[in-house]
């Protein structure tokens, strides 16, 4: 070991520290916020869609003069895992100097990211993750615009009990329901909340035991399908990621699994455009709880809401060539709501911001996605204002079918019937 070794080690140290010291400067006249999304890793597909939604609405906001008199600009960071989420949130807050961080799509990431943001006294504006404990940590500058897993489960069971059960000729407590779910924070959260409401509020009969699986290693659903055939549920509540929903549905058709309805929630899995592309008309009949899809009656919104919803849809169509996907809508809706708050607060000071957030009270139908706004003291936008919709795959299109006052389309194939009969 020589002195060269020393020099080398020092050189490595100096180089790497200098690298860390690299700074990006924004242009003046811009207001920067941090955008944290998983852009690599297993969640990259959805992360990209969220980023697109953010960018589209940012452009809409800037056409109206931006926020607080400045153009809205993003500092984007990739958060493939919780440690990276925490580090990048810290970097955005300190090195990039943003006062507001938004994101993060996944329940795996939002806990760590919001924790790091709070420690830097930066506002954290979550637009998607569903972990129910997110708002219960007593963090004063952490907000969520989207409902949590409990809300998802609530809406799904509401639809099953009030819309599907009567059309099967059954009372909710006569309904047999089976639960299948991908095993991640999202799947578990939504499934368990749905199970709870189904049993406790409606007395639905859970048949078979709830099945969880890891979506990144599932290669064959045959055992699950065989057991479902034995249990004979009326409704299958399946929360899926995308590759597993594609696989399951193919095998369900091959093995002729007959259920009266399949209900999912969220922008991945059955709610993803990839599912429709994969199965074409075989996807007919599947339900997914999401933001509004085609058929949505913009006229059912309030006048302000109509205007902004039309503009949003046109912008997404222009950029992606199709109707907004769930990811676009969650991110876009959340960012628009941020603008509304900043317009009222005229400041990013955490206390003034919080006052503005708490003072907002707009009915459902006022904004993108037909949302309203009313935050709880814990920073959660309430279930009743964040209207969610049940969509159904109908001949290659995932259209809105419920609640019926919001849409021109109606649900078909209730019950699903034979596989080759769903035209």
């Amino acid at each position, binding site marked *: 070991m020589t002195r060269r070794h020393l020099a080398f080690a020092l050189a490595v140290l100096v180089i790497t520290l200098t690298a860390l010291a690299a700074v990006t400067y924004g242009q003046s006249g811009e207001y920067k916020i941090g955008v944290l999304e998983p852009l*690599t*890793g*297993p*969640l*990259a*597909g*959805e*992360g*990209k869609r969220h980023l697109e939604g953010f960018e589209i609405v940012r452009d809409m906001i800037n056409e109206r003069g931006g926020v607080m008199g400045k153009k809205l600009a993003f500092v984007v960071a990739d958060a493939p895992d919780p440690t990276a989420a925490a580090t990048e949130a810290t970097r955005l807050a300190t090195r990039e100097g943003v006062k507001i961080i938004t994101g993060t799509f996944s329940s795996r990431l939002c806990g760590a990211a919001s924790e790091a943001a709070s420690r830097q006294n930066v506002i954290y504006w979550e637009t998607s993750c569903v972990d129910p404990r997110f708002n219960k940590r007593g963090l004063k500058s952490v907000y969520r615009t989207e409902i949590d897993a409990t809300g998802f489960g609530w809406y799904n069971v509401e639809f099953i009990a009030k819309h599907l059960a009567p059309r099967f000729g059954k009372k909710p407590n006569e309904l047999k329901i089976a639960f299948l779910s991908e*095993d991640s924070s999202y799947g578990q959260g939504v499934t368990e909340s749905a199970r709870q409401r189904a049993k406790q509020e409606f007395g639905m009969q859970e048949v078979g*035991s709830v*099945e*969880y*699986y*890891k979506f*990144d*290693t*599932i*290669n*064959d*659903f*045959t*055992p*699950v399908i*065989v*057991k479902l055939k*034995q*249990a004979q549920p009326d409704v299958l509540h399946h929360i899926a990621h*995308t*590759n597993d929903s*594609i*696989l399951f549905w*193919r095998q369900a*058709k*091959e*093995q*002729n699994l007959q259920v009266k309805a399949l209900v999912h929630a969220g922008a991945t899995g059955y709610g*993803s455009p*990839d599912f429709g*592309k*994969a*199965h*074409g008309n075989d996807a007919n009949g599947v339900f997914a709880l999401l933001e509004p899809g085609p058929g949505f009656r913009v006229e059912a919104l309030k006048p302000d809401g109509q205007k902004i919803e039309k503009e949003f849809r046109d912008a997404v169509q222009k950029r992606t060539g199709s109707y907004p996907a769930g990811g676009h809508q969650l991110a876009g809706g959340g960012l628009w709501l941020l603008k509304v708050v900043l317009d009222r607060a005229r400041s990013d000071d955490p206390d003034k911001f919080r006052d503005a957030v708490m003072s907002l009270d707009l009915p459902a139908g006022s904004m993108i996605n037909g949302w309203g706004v009313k935050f709880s003291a814990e920073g959660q936008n309430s279930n009743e204002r964040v209207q969610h919709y049940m969509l159904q795959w109908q001949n290659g299109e995932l259209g809105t079918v419920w609640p019926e006052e919001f849409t021109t389309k109606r649900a078909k194939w209730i019950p699903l019937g034979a596989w080759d009969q769903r035209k």
Partner: protein
Amino acid sequence: MDPAGRLGPAQIDVLAQLSVSTVLLGSIYALVAVGLTLIFGIMRVVNFAHGEFLMLGMYLAFWSFTLWSIDPWFMLLIAIPLFFGVGLLTYVLVMRGVIHASHNVQIFTTVGLSTALQNVALVLWTGDYHVFRPWHSGVIVRLAGTAFNLSQVVAFVISVALTIALFAFMKWTHTGRVMRATAQDGEAATLMGIDTDRVYRLTFAIGIACVGVAGVLVSPLYAAYPQAGLQFVLLAYVVVVLGGLGDMVGAMLGSLIVAAVEVGGSYVFGAAWKEVLYFLLFIGVLVFRPAGLFGQRGAETLGV
């Protein structure tokens, strides 16, 4: 549900369906494992990037079908030489430099390769899930109360054919014997005049060709996405260890066992536990029969 124990027609149907699925699933695993058992068996390299070549095979099939309407069964013929070439290229560019280095260095080389390949796919083709449906993926075969997919049947047939072909190659051709000799004792092989570098190159190329073919064959059945390799790679290692390194028939049998544990285990305990079951089996086999269920005793210490 019928009470356990009575073997009525319903139970037989269940058993039949589970068995058929086991065999078909096992054949897919065998396709992936056969290339790996060659690479791991002869070169003793833990190739972390093995799944990524499978993923590339899936994308190849997807794009050739989407852009030029080429059916994957035809694409197979092109995939074999193509992935053989890819294997050669990868060996020359990446593996050759570390072939004489320690195992750890080799492992981390393949880790870097795996990261790079996954993200090449991500940048080129995004994280969207790509599915295509050639005519045969919609053909449902119904046989005695069971149901499965024509694409699966063909994958099974080709898997068996490939295994037999490789087995014959390894056992009865000169090159095969040379490869086996190198696996047993690289130094002695060199002393015998064998060009071990050429052997490793050929092994790696054949191994990658196998897994690329596997990707093309399974593409009608699964979605293609950058991390698709992860669905198969760890269990491929389980298969390879169970079957004995470098043992073709062992790979096929090991695949069936892993598939059986998965399918049977999912049925009895629930889908959440299938990996736990085959990993515990894996650890058990490693502890009690490290040469694999079918390998020669003591073979596991060769070349390590």
